[in-house]
Structures are given as C-alpha cells and as structure tokens.
C-alpha cells in the first residue's frame, strides 16, 4: 500500500464503518485511478508524497455528514443519533420562537400599546440615537420569524422552516451588527455565541430527511406554551422597577431548566429500569446531552463576558451563582455524554449491503 493510499484511506475513515465495508475498496481504486500518470517517475513521486486534494476531502466530509444525519434507512446507531439531533434542533427552535414572541409582546408593552396593562417606567438606554428605535424594531420583528419557522417545522413543512429559519438567523446577524454600529457598543460574547448557535440550528435542519420520524406536534405546541410562560415570567422579573435584579441571568435560567430536566430524566431512567415507568424514550439521553453542551457553552461565554466587561447592573451573586451553574451543567453534560455513548454503542452500526444505507432519490 502506497503512502498516498494510506492517506486516502485515513480520510475515508470519516465515513461510517458500515458504509466503508460496502464502498471503500471501490472508492480507493477509483481515487488511485484518478491520480494515475504515464510517467513512472511522477507516479512514484505522487505515490510517496501525494495527498488527496482539498476538494476530494471536502466531498468525503460532505458524504460523511449526509450519511450520519441525513440518510433514511441508516443503521440504528446513526438513526438514533440523527433523531437526537432533530429533537435538539426542535428544542433550540422552540426557545427562539418563545423568545421572539415574548420579545414582540415586550416591545408593545414598553411602548404602552397593550391596553389595560400599564407600561413600566423604564429609563431609555442613555445616549442612544433615535435610529436605535428603528434598528430595535427591525430586530424584534425579524426575530419573530423564528415563530413561523418553529410552527412550520412541527407541521412537517421542513423546506419552509429552513427558509424562515435562515431568514431569522441572517436578520439577527444584520441587526446585531447595525445595533453595534448605531450604539457604538461592543458585541458581547453571549450575543456572538447565540448567532453561531442560530446558524448551527439552521444547518442542522439537514437532519430532516424523507425517512425522519414525524414530529409530535401536540407535545411541541404545548412545550411552546410552557416556554412562553416561563420566558414571560422571567422577563417580567427582570423588568420590575425595584432593583436588584434576580441573581439568575439568561444563561443561568437555561442552566437551571436543563439541569432540572436532566435530573428528572435520570430519575425516570432509574424508575424505568425498575419497571415502574416505561414511557420515557431512551433517545432523550443523547438529546439532553447535546442541549446541555450547548447551554454549557452559553454559560461559559457569558461568564467570560462578565470577566471582561464586568457584571454591572446584575445581582452581586450572579457571577458566583453562574460558576456553580457552569459546574452543574458540565457535570450533567458529561454524565449524559457517557450514558449516550454507552447506549448508542449497543445499537448496531453495520449494514449487510449498500441498500441498507441507501437513500431514495429526492
């Protein structure tokens, strides 16, 4: 085996083992034929020092991603992984949808446009130019796109969800940059992290392929209601005129909710093993692991923001509590990751032939 072949086979390791079992030898033969040359000296040089081109590597990476998250009829291990990604994306879209709905309600409330509910006496952000209002209105209204994106997703209209989600993510980037330019304020790490997460959410919508299991619409709509109530309550707490603010910032609230969900899930799993509770889906373990790592990232980035820019305006205990939350969510994420790896490893990851891996032509 030449060193070029070794290098190419190393790239092919990105593909699932079951896929390689069917296609690897043929792919290697085709690749080596594509770099063949009549000049023996050049052929020897390529065999020793040649490398697969970046475009070849990119095509393998794209295939590996598609097989793992976007293929109908995948072996159970990858099908479970794909399902966990879909549930995590739904959870992310749910939070964005709830936040955007509450954001619009808050804007109307602050503008005194909600009848029978008096607007809070909040001070205008100091030194902000008039144009800030227009930018803020654009941000709030374009953010509202997350709501139809989520509703489209739970209704099975994935293409519409992709378009609406992409528009919402793109407009969030635009409004963040314009806001920073208008107000001359620096963009916080937390905001940047959220923008990246939005992009990942939209890209991960690729995990919805034709064979994806349907979304439980009723449960997710109920979850949207619960999430809106939770966010509204939190925002109302923040908007109370009497300081200090509660010691729970946005990342902290997410940590508390996720850690509570993890604790409930683990308790449920224990009961399930004892045969008391069988309704829990094992797929929730990797799903919660993905969510816990995403929230851990948010928590760490927001703590870094406090370290760099200070935590003025927040409750004095916010930072210390934030560190404790980071530890708790890190522990939860690690435990879930270990449990997920163990449960996914038990699922078969090999297919007998190519048909088991094949996806229908779109």
């Amino acid at each position, binding site marked *: 085996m030449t060193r070029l072949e070794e290098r190419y086979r190393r790239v092919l390791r990105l593909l699932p083992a079951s896929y390689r079992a069917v296609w690897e030898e043929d792919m290697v*033969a085709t690749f080596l034929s594509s770099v063949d040359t009549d000049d023996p000296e050049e052929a020897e040089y390529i065999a020793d020092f040649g490398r697969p081109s970046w475009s070849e590597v990119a095509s393998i990476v794209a295939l590996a991603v598609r097989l793992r998250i976007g293929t109908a009829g995948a072996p159970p291990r990858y099908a479970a992984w794909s399902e966990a990604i879909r549930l995590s994306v739904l959870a992310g879209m749910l939070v964005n949808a709830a936040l955007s709905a509450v954001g619009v309600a808050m804007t109307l409330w602050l503008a005194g446009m909600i009848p029978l509910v008096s607007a809070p006496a909040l001070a205008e952000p100091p030194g902000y130019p008039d144009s800030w209002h227009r930018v803020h209105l654009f941000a709030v209204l374009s953010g509202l796109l997350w709501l139809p994106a989520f509703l489209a997703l739970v209704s099975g209209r994935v293409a519409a969800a992709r378009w609406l989600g992409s528009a919402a993510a793109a407009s969030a980037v635009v409004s963040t940059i314009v806001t920073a330019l208008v107000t001359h304020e620096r963009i916080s790490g937390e905001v940047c992290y959220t923008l990246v997460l939005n992009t990942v959410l939209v890209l991960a919508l690729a995990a919805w392929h034709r064979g994806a299991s349907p979304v439980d619409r009723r449960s997710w709509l109920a979850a949207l209601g619960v999430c809106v109530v939770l966010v509204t309550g939190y925002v109302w707490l923040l908007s109370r005129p009497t300081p200090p603010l509660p010691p729970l910032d946005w990342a902290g609230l997410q940590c508390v909710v996720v850690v509570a969900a993890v604790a409930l899930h683990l308790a449920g799993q224990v009961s399930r093993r004892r045969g008391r509770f069988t309704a829990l889906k094992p797929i929730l373990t990797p799903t919660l692991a993905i969510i816990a790592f995403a929230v851990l990232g948010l928590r760490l980035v927001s703590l870094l923001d406090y370290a760099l820019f200070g935590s003025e305006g927040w409750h004095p205990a916010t930072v210390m509590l934030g560190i404790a939350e980071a530890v708790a969510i890190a522990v939860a994420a690690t435990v879930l990751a270990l449990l997920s790896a163990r449960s996914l490893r038990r699922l078969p990851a090999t297919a007998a032939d190519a048909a088991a*891996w094949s996806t229908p032509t779109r």
Partner: protein
Amino acid sequence: MTEPAFFVLTALVDEPRHGYGIVGEVVALSDGRVRLKIGTLYGVLDRLAGDGLVQRDRDEVQQGRLRRYYRLTETGRRSLNAEAERQAANARAASARLSASTLTRRPARQGWVS
C-alpha cells in the same frame, strides 16, 4: 433528479462502467463542465443503487486493483428516459418563448426619437 445523478445514469446507458470510467464519461458528456469528486460519485451511486436504478455488474482486478462495474437497470433506463423527456420539454418551452421574444422585441425607445 440531481445533475450528477442524471449524468451518472447517462454514462451507464451504453455499457457497464467502473467508478473511474463513470467519472471520465461524465466529463465527456458534460463537455468538461461536471467533474465528479469521489465522495460525490459514491454518494450518487449509493442512492441510485438504493433506488434500484443501477446495480453491480461484475468485479475485475486490474494491476492489483479492484474494478467494480455498474450497469443501468430497466427501472434506471425508464427513469432516465422520463427525466430526459422532462428536461427536453422544459428546454423546448424556454426556446419557444425566447424565439417569440426575439421576433417581437423592439429597441426600447424606438418611435420616441424625433
């Protein structure tokens, strides 16, 4: 049907071909416009095999290397025929509209210049 899938099926119409043979034939068929990367080719072949449009023909070993040949199935031939007719109909509609537009088009400001 995607463009690479269309060309891969077309490359297999006259005879079974191996992976590299398909790559070369697709370059020729598309006048050099479509150059399939290996990952793309095998992603397409995998889907087409799963849909029953192509199937393995035979394996050969040449210069110590495996050469697996693929051929078009009857379903694949019918599917390609239907796609080719659809594309031809689209092209005819566009050409007819363009021809009509060329015949009726006038310079934008003709008649206004004194």
